[in-house]
Structures are given as structure tokens and as C-alpha cells.
């Protein structure tokens, strides 16, 4: 736990493995939020159409 984290270097970019993992997980969550269907969305759509 007290050992320093491994670091990656690409040109001027220097980032630790834990920070890289966090950014990767965030990007994955964001993409999943865009593509995964939201529960009950179809019903809400129908209700909204009913209002028109």
C-alpha cells in the first residue's frame, strides 16, 4: 500500500496507473450512460406523446 504507484510517460504526459484507471472507468461509465436504455423510458415516451 505504501509503495509508489507505477507511472506512465507519453511525451509531456505523466500519469499514475490509479489515476489512469479512474479516468478509464469514468469514460466507460459515461459511454454506458449514453447507450444503455433507461428503465421505463418507453412508457415515459408514450406518456409524453399522449400530451401532444
Amino acid at each position, binding site marked *: 500500500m505504501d509503495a509508489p504507484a507505477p507511472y506512465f510517460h507519453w511525451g509531456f504526459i505523466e500519469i499514475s496507473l490509479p489515476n489512469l484507471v*479512474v479516468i478509464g472507468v469514468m469514460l466507460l461509465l459515461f459511454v454506458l450512460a449514453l447507450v444503455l436504455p*433507461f428503465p421505463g423510458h418507453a412508457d415515459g415516451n408514450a406518456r*409524453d406523446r399522449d400530451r401532444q
Partner: protein
Amino acid sequence: MSTPPGSVPGDTGSSGRTEPAPPKQESGGWTGAVAGWLERRLPIGKLLPTRQPYYIGSWVYVFGVVTIAALIWVVLSGVVLTFFGPQWWHVSSIGHFINSLHFWSVQLFFIFMVLHLWGQYWAAGWRDGRAPTWMVGVVIFLISIVTAFTGYISQQNLDAQWIAVNAKDAINSVGVGAFFNPLNFGQMYGLHVMLLPIAITLLVVLHVVQVRMRGVVAPLGAADAHLPDGVREARPS
């Protein structure tokens, strides 16, 4: 952008339709004026809506409320840490647990706040009169960074001392002096457990009320026929 008197774009009240509020004779001094303003801008149907537009049905809109959930855990665990103090959170098992709960809640708070920021950025969430909502969010983000920093240097361990000494060097270089002194534990701890959390909590409440007043921003390119009443009328033709 024109808005009918007494209505606010993005109305999603229980009736699903914006009705212009009848003009009221305000009396009773400043309290009457404030009450009238609140009735016009934030009726209970907007504050606690029972319906939302169809485009709310997306996981992207969940990031904001998850951020608030994480903030609640941060505050609750922080209150426990404040009561028992550093000896407790460094030595006892339950202290370690609550300390970790506080730390990981903060990680989730920042992760979901940034995801919320991405979602709002790519949806241009400042449109249709929502710039103040966006700016309050920016201020919350900035204060949160300072709060996290003061938390790191309030840990009472070598990590905290190392960060504080290096930060003092950096802050000296910009001439802040002792006004914000990372080596002053009392100042950092006071800011971390009192002033900054109060500021964040109040601004988050304001942020949510602002969202309620204007409604959630419609997706870019949404057909006018799919927009709620109020938003449609408010759009420039």
C-alpha cells in the same frame, strides 16, 4: 428570448402546462415582495414536479443526483470524524472504517460531479437562460477542490504534512502569505469542517432550486414538438 409573464421556460409542473400567473397586488413590505416573487418563479409544482419531459429518461441525468448522494455520505462520515478526532480515526478499527468511508465518498463525489459536468457540457446545459445554473455549478466545483485540499492536509499524518509543506512553498510563490496557510492546522481544519462544507451545501441547494426553476435543458436539436410547454414558446423563432 421572450417569456410569458408569470411563466418560466422548462415548466414541467403537475398540470404539464404553463399558465401565466395572474398579476398580484403585492403588499406587506419586502416579505410580501419576496413571497410574490417566489410564487411566480418557483411554484410548488416546479419545486416538486410530478412529471418530467421524455428526454429525462437517460442515465446521463442520474449523475447529478448520485453526486448529491455521495455528498450526503461525505457530510455524514465527516460529522462522525469531527466528533471523535484524529487519534480515533488513526488508531481504532471503526475510526479507520469511517475515515475510509469519508475518503471514498469524496472520490465518488468528484467522479460523479465530473461525469455530471461532462453530460451538461456536451448538452450545452447553459442554454435558454440557464447560465446562472452553470456558473453556480462551476463555483461548487472550485470550492470542492479547496475543500478536498484542506481535507488532505487535515489528516494528521506524514502525508498531510508533506502536502502542506509543499503547498506552502507553492502558495508563498504567489504572495498569498498567511491569509491561506496550509501549515496552520487550525485554519485548514476550520475551513474544512465548517466554512467550506456549509458553502458547498448551500450552493448545491441553490443549484437544485435553479434546475427546478428552469427545468432540465432540452437535448440539442430536439424537435420543438417534443419540448415541454414554456420551453417551446421561449425559443427564438
